[in-house]
């Protein structure tokens, strides 16, 4: 009887379609992969939200379906997209990370302090921030696995620790960014901002990790049922620690990017963006099961885009900021209710 871990009943609904007697063509496989993928309803929802937003904004007299507006939405998705890609990995492992918001703030401060306005320091700054991400991720992972502290409490504790460290040293923006590094936030290749490539690179890397590496397979196994994976010979602790390192490194990269956008390190940039709960919301909107073991990073990006389209629409309609929160809350609950219904039907 497992005492320390809650049972995870929801983690096994994924790719266990019954074998069909008929000879299967490659097309069948692909069709099945698409209908069974947890990302499919997310993109269907994204398309729906997109079309409704287009109609509503156009009726209101705004412009929605223009290249510049879409690029704008993409650019606004970069920060949340990167941190949510990392959060996806943590959640797939059956864990979660509430410390990302403070890690983002701290990373932006470290970036700007180490860089100190000079492009010559870009490499040390980036290395320092990535090292920070690795350290925090290792810390989270070790606390969760070796000390057996529930992930919720462990990362909440880490968040408090980071918050204290930040507030103890900084009470306003600090450091500055080299001009060359600011290009990351503002250059465009043609019409596409450089930062979008950063997002694509991070997502591609996480996708590769999840789909093509042993780590990825083990991650899904551990998230689905940790005890069974352990009995099957997976070193579950290593997988969970690695998942947290990936998650924290993604948050650190978000901090780098936000520092380049703002030109300085800011102690509140992570919490102002609400990246902790927002990234979890994006992951879950993206069809990843909160209990772990099912979902993927493509769905998460779909979730991030849904939030971006909503945000853009509300801004164009000049909806009251508080009403915006109400609508977002309703949409997050409603979307997850729909996914729950869908996976229940299939099971």
């Amino acid at each position, binding site marked *: 009887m497992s*005492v*320390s871990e*809650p049972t995870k009943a929801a983690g096994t609904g994924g790719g266990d379609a019954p074998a069909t007697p008929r000879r299967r063509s490659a097309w069948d496989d692909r069709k099945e992969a698409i209908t069974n993928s947890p990302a499919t309803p997310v993109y269907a929802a994204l398309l729906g939200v997109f079309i409704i937003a287009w109609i509503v904004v156009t009726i209101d007299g705004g412009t929605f379906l223009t290249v510049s507006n879409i690029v704008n939405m993409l650019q606004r998705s970069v920060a949340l997209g990167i941190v949510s890609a990392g959060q996806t990995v943590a959640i797939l492992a059956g864990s979660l990370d509430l410390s990302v918001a403070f890690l983002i703030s701290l990373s932006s401060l470290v970036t700007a302090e180490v860089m100190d306005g000079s492009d010559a320091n870009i490499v040390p700054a980036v290395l320092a921030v990535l090292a920070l991400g690795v350290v925090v991720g290792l810390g989270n992972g070790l606390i969760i696995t070796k000390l057996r502290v529930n992930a919720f409490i462990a990362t909440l504790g*880490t968040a408090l*620790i980071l918050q*204290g460290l930040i507030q103890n040293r900084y009470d306003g923006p600090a450091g500055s960014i080299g001009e060359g590094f600011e290009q990351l936030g503002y250059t465009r290749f043609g019409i596409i901002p450089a930062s979008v490539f950063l997002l694509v690179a991070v997502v591609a890397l996480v996708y590769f990790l999840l789909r093509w590496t042993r780590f990825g397979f083990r991650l899904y196994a551990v998230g689905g049922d940790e005890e069974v994976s352990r009995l099957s010979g997976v070193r579950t602790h290593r997988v969970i620690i690695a998942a947290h390192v990936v998650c924290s490194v993604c948050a650190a990269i978000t901090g780098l990017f936000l520092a380049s956008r703002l030109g300085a390190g800011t102690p509140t940039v992570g919490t102002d963006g609400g990246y902790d709960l927002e990234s979890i919301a994006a992951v879950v909107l993206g069809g990843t099961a909160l209990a772990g073991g099912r979902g993927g990073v493509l769905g998460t990006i779909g979730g991030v885009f849904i939030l971006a389209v909503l945000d853009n629409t509300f801004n164009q309609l000049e909806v009251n900021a*508080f009403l915006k929160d*109400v609508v*977002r809350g309703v949409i997050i609950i409603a979307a997850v209710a729909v996914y729950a219904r869908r996976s229940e039907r299939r099971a």
Partner: protein
Amino acid sequence: MSATTPDAFETPVTSRSERVRKALVGTAPIFIVLFILLALIAIENPNFLEPPGFLAFLKRAAPLAILAAGQYFVIVSGEFDLSVGSIVTVVVVVAARLIDDDPSKTWPIIALLLAIGATVGVTNGLITTRLKVPSFITTLGMLLILSGAVFWWTGGAPRGALPDNFREIGRLGIQDFPVLEQLPWSVVILLVIGIGAILLMRASFGRRLMAVGDNESAARLSGVKVENMRTIAFVLSGLSAAVAGILLGGFAGVSAQVGQGLEFQAITAVVLGGVVLGGGRGTVLAAMAGALTLEALFTLLNLYGVSGALEDTVQGIIIIAAVAFASYRLRGAR
């Protein structure tokens, strides 16, 4: 099986002394920690040993302890309630705007506030159990909805004011009480809720709720209405948040930040009390002791003059250490 709690699926313990021993083993650590912290506070500040000093501490801790009791029901049934902080904010802001310094409206509005808490709880419970949305998301969404809605209604900042007869509940108490000089209302309310919660957990309701959190399908197969039990747990949590809001409105006054972060503090308090996230383990008394411990920790850090910022860091380290220690013990006990 750990020796922390009696539950429906354990062979009943026959002798009374064995039962007492089990209860003590399960909840003792948090009381030891609490006692040590209180002793340290008393060394720094001898006034703390006098009834008024200690009652002032209890008065300050009462809202968090009440929130922890409510959160306990939800956690022990295997769920989370992240919406309690926003319920506190809603309660304070709605009370200030609707009462608007008119003492005659206080009691009807308090009834309304409790109804709001219960309604939010029912909604959380129904969405979680009927629509199968994980409670983390349900209550996170509810947090967004409530805090958004209340400030949309008031236009961004709290408006109105609370009359004295509302604020007395959180600030004053029964005057000229023997020995204690003054018995704060919030301490009375805390005691009533604490005793009520303990009795509830000892009754058939408590056994069934514990069973739901321990093993949902086993509870369902033994005829427990799992959905209803969880929904009731959310209602109790919503109600306790409303009560905590009423006390905080009196104690701390009207502000937009009154409830901020309280959900995490409440969950931390419950977990500090040795209640296992995921459900089925722990006692409500230990959860409330966890809240007192957390509050004692804040008080102590203040007395030691740890700078406001580093206080968070120390708190984070202690929370992780406490939970690590608890889970170490749990493994040892198996």
